[in-house]
């Protein structure tokens, strides 16, 4: 027993390969690895909800298709031209690059904020899985208007799902990652099959009838009562910024640092077009066929039977697990005396409590947009620092070279950008989906200006950070 505990502890205390050093040449990966990874990562449990919420927000069929094409294309270009070149040049994770630029203390603060966001994201995935687990027990599922826990049965189901996911995140994360890889081809086909099977219920029995029915019965352009109307621009900006933290925010440096060349950032197209595009379209069709129900477990069961419900559980589980694990790692930076399993347990508990509130899932579109927006300014900081600071006669990796632990130019860029975005939101009434674009340019200008102001002539650093 002791040996087993020691082995688990050794696993828990191990760090990822090449986390603190550039990835060596012989460990770089080719196109195939990235295509598979992106396609799998972007066919998740939350896709079941996002497509359905587009329908609820009254997107028209034309706006949906054209908006998804443009938005997903912009997302791919953001990966290819912003994130991948930085990742290939530094070959470091976001966290270690941030530490060089911003100093240890600011990097930790970023880590905490990131971890809190991860908790909310994982909470949404636990909720999604719970909608399927609760089906055999006939637990009433939350609807679009529900913000608070709807029943004791719902809370118990969420806690059961959350407990299992947390225990697995503590003990066997590697197995879940492998299971997620295996699940992806099947999950992707379940999305397609489920949508195809319900099309006759909507009156489509041949491909030529699809577009007419899509306009009249699925994406009708009529929002559900109490919800705002989504336009072409909502779809463009949502699909572009749904993964803003990953591309413009630079989180995917952790993945793309293994790329042989920056062009491999284009492999994100597999995730955007096979994952997001098709999965969101499919879940919209499923919602329309389920007469407006949004609980993913229910709509998947109605269209694909037991396999559909199990697909929802697996999709929620395989994406919530690494998210809780990453959040646990991030929190550990501020609780160094806690064992990793204790931190993960605490993270899992917080996440599960969050998951009890359907408000998170029912407002998933807003949350996803907010998540990207909050982390975006640091992506702008990294891009400038790595790619442009030498051209601007500024010192890159300033914290490492000057020995400071909190780079105020970067810190203030983050806080001021978010403050100005909040001002634009409150004063001009610009919705959260659109704030990322002006926010990025604000961050760029502030970081250049403040770096010119703060950077002093450097003495050789005595100790690297």
């Amino acid at each position: 027993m002791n040996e087993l505990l020691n082995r688990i502890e050794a696993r828990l205390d191990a760090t990822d390969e090449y986390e603190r050093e550039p990835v060596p040449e012989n460990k770089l990966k080719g196109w195939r690895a990235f295509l598979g990874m992106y396609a799998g990562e972007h066919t998740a449990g939350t896709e079941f909800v996002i497509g359905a919420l587009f329908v609820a927000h009254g997107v028209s069929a034309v706006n949906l298709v054209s908006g998804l094409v443009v938005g997903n294309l912009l997302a791919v270009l953001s990966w290819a031209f912003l994130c991948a070149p930085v990742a290939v040049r530094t070959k470091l994770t976001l966290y270690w690059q941030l530490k060089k630029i911003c100093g240890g203390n600011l990097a930790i603060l970023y880590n905490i904020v990131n971890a809190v966001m991860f908790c909310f994201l994982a909470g949404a995935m636990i909720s999604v899985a719970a909608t399927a687990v609760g089906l055999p027990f006939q637990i009433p599922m939350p609807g679009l208007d529900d913000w608070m826990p709807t029943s004791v049965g719902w809370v118990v189901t969420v806690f059961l799902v959350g407990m299992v996911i947390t225990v697995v995140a503590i003990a066997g994360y590697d197995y879940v990652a492998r299971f997620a890889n295996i699940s992806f081809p099947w999950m992707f086909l379940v999305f397609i099959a489920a949508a195809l099977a319900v099309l006759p219920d909507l009156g489509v029995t041949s491909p030529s009838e699809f577009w007419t029915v899509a306009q009249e019965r699925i994406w009708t352009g009529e929002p559900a009562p109490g919800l705002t109307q989504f336009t072409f621009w909502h779809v463009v900006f949502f699909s572009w910024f749904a993964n803003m933290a990953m591309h413009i925010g630079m989180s995917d440096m952790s993945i793309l640092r293994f790329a042989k060349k920056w062009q491999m950032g284009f492999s994100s197209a597999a995730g955007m077009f096979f994952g997001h595009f098709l999965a969101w379209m499919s879940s919209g069709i499923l919602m329309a066929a389920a007469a407006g129900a949004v609980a993913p477990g229910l709509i998947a069961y109605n269209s694909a039977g037991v396999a559909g419900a199990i697909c929802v559980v697996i999709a929620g589980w395989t994406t919530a697990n690494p998210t809780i694990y990453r959040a646990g790692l991030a929190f550990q930076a501020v609780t160094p005396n806690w064992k990793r399993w204790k931190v993960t347990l605490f993270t899992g508990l917080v996440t599960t409590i969050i998951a009890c509130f359907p408000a998170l899932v029912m407002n998933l579109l807003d949350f996803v947009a907010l998540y990207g927006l909050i982390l975006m300014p640091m992506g702008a900081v990294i891009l400038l620092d790595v790619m442009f600071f030498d051209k601007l006669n500024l010192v890159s990796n300033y914290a490492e070279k000057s020995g400071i632990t909190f780079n105020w130019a970067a810190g203030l860029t983050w806080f001021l950008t978010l403050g100005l975005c909040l001002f634009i939101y409150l004063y001009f009434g610009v919705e959260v989906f659109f704030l990322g674009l002006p926010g990025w340019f604000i961050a760029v200008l502030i970081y250049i200006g403040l770096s010119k102001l703060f950077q002093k002539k450097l003495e050789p650093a005595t100790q690297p950070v």
Partner: protein
Amino acid sequence: MNLILKLLSFIGLVLTVFPAVLVFTENLSFDMHTTLMMVGMLLWFGTAPFWMKEKKL
């Protein structure tokens, strides 16, 4: 052995998606589609873990 496993996995994926195509063309009942999807799921998860290699990034 590997080839047989891969073939069974492929059949699992076909059983996941092809019945839905038949439901769409109104050549298969909905109940049969859900049953075949479950068989496809069991075939996939029963065979794919034995031959799919881990791609760790």
